[in-house]
């Protein structure tokens, strides 16, 4: 079985994240690029499944990490390989800079077709763009079932099962393979790669794919290659979030309770 985990390099959430006011895109040079936390957890869950499957003799599970990201973010894929993915696919093409969600979905779908996967696992949203629609779009383009926002996953030879929390209760969903699933940050804590994994990562295949390599698959999806270069939804303007204003400190002289109540009422917060 082949499972492709879609991973995303994002600006480190622990650092300051900066929006370039010129391009309207995240300024990737301003902070360190790391694997998005949810995708890292998704990868951990899938690697554990592969390890358990190998141990119990249930069959070999090949884990592939795939990303569409700028050329200089390859270290994040090396980390995915160090954690235990067997190979990685890096879709990198200058023509994809600023690709909107639909474009990204088309290109990823083409690459997924090319790779051929029994199961595609993605995070339910990324910490930078937070679009949250990629897994559904991919399922639509690939004509596969989508089981989204799963908090647990269980993979068998021909199906994937999981649970999804809603306000009203917990749903258990299942889909026959091949399928697309998205998972939440409830997935297990990602491992810290061991030295053996780090050293071994260099020897694992990391394929860099350009748009031209995907022409046949894009055509199959009904997307013309020259079209992929331009985004259809375009950032018109970007402004910096205004700096936080200093808060108001209420010192308690016996009337603090009333003053806090008045403060909240003034702002229609109570």
């Amino acid at each position, binding site marked *: 079985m082949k499972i492709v985990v879609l991973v995303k390099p994002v600006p480190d959430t622990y650092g300051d994240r900066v929006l370039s006011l010129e391009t309207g895109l995240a300024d990737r040079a301003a902070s360190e690029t790391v694997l998005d936390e949810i995708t890292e957890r998704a990868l951990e869950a899938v690697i554990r499944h592969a390890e358990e499957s190998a141990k119990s003799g249930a069959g070999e599970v090949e884990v592939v990490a795939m990303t569409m990201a700028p050329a200089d973010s390859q270290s994040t894929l090396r980390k995915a390989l160090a954690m235990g993915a067997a190979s990685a696919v890096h879709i990198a093409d200058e023509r994809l800079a600023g690709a909107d969600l639909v474009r990204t979905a088309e290109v990823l779908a083409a690459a997924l077709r090319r790779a051929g996967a029994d199961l595609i696992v993605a995070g339910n949203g990324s910490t930078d763009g937070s679009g949250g629609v990629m897994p559904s779009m991919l399922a639509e383009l690939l004509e596969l079932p989508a089981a989204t926002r799963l908090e647990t996953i269980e993979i068998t030879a021909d199906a994937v099962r999981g649970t999804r929390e809603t306000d009203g209760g917990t749903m258990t969903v299942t889909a026959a393979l091949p399928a697309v699933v998205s998972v939440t940050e409830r997935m297990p804590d990602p491992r*810290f790669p061991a030295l053996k994994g*780090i050293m071994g990562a260099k020897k694992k295949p990391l394929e860099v794919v350009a748009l031209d390599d995907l022409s046949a698959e894009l055509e199959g999806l009904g997307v013309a290659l020259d079209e992929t270069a331009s985004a259809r939804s375009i950032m018109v303007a970007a402004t910096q979030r205004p700096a936080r204003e200093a808060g108001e400190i209420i010192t308690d002289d016996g009337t603090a309770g009333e003053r806090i109540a008045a403060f909240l009422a003034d702002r229609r917060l109570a």
Partner: protein
Amino acid sequence: MAIDLSTYSLTDDELTLSEGVRDFAERVVAPVSYEADRTKTLPMDVVAQMGEMGLFGIPFPEEYGGQGGDYFALCLAIEALARVDQSIAITLEAGVSLGAMPIFNFGSDEQKAELLPALLAGEALAGFGLTEPEAGSDAGATRTTARLEGDEWVINGSKQFITNSGTPITKFITVTAVTGETDGRKEISTIYVPNGTPGFTVEPAYDKVGWHASDTHPLTFSDVRVPAANLVGQRGRGFANFLHILDEGRIAIAALSTGAAEGCLEEAVDYAHKRKVFGEPLASRQNVQFVLARMQTRVHNARLAWHHAARLRDAGKPFKTEAALAKLTASDAAMDNARDATQIFGGNGFMNEYSVARHYRDSKILEIGEGTSEVQLLVIARALGVA
């Protein structure tokens, strides 16, 4: 403000390893350090996670379950841990240098196959018992004896200050003992003794000044019988063996000291920015700036010194003097930086919840363990031909 490690000519793999262990230290170790120190308990779940990361197997070949790395890589991991918690770092240092290395370096193929896999996986720990009440710097003064009776060694004596000797996963201690006399000179050999062997007692843990979460006990041996096959290496080679073990260990203690010195520096820089005195941040005072600059210089020198010694060792070149130089330089750096950092913290520097206070208590032992500073000076003086 962290120092850019990539400027130290680390390979990509080394950089990734170092960053990974630093990340682990901050996310997993730091949150439990205060409590572990306060309650004087080694957090075994942290040790287990270090095992899963393969840290205990770094400098060993894969055939025993090792990571296939070198001593330099091990030292990078120790340094990265010590920045945050010296007790955790020494648990790894002693686990590898004193626990597994004697078996790996001098043990038979059968001993390696039997004992190493669990140690390298971090599922078991072992100790190295050299120091005795009457034999410290003068380790050759060993009084513990082992007498061969049939196919058994009968061991009598005591050891003191033995790291990792009484944890819930400690499996054995490799001890040095006098096994006879040749030409009027003591014959010293190394023998491993499984914990739980009748007559072998791990006495209650010490009440230490620092390294509270690290496990240290006195050991007593009274008519302890172990198979003759528990001899590690050749009979009579015990003295030469442990000198080799100590030389290597000094590089690792130098790396540990460098991490401690760096942890103190980072805390001090951070505090100097945040703390205002007389309306200005501490960092605006030139005397504080100069103290910080000197702390940074010590970290840099300490790191270069251990890098050099470790690279020599891994290249199979002599490294005895360089290891002594590195240990001396780095342990001084740790102690000096711990003192300067606590001074910058003022009263807070005397409060245990601040990590600089812990570093202050922890760093002193760095000038004592695995050869005191005076012993390092002796080694260096000998190399100069003046001692």
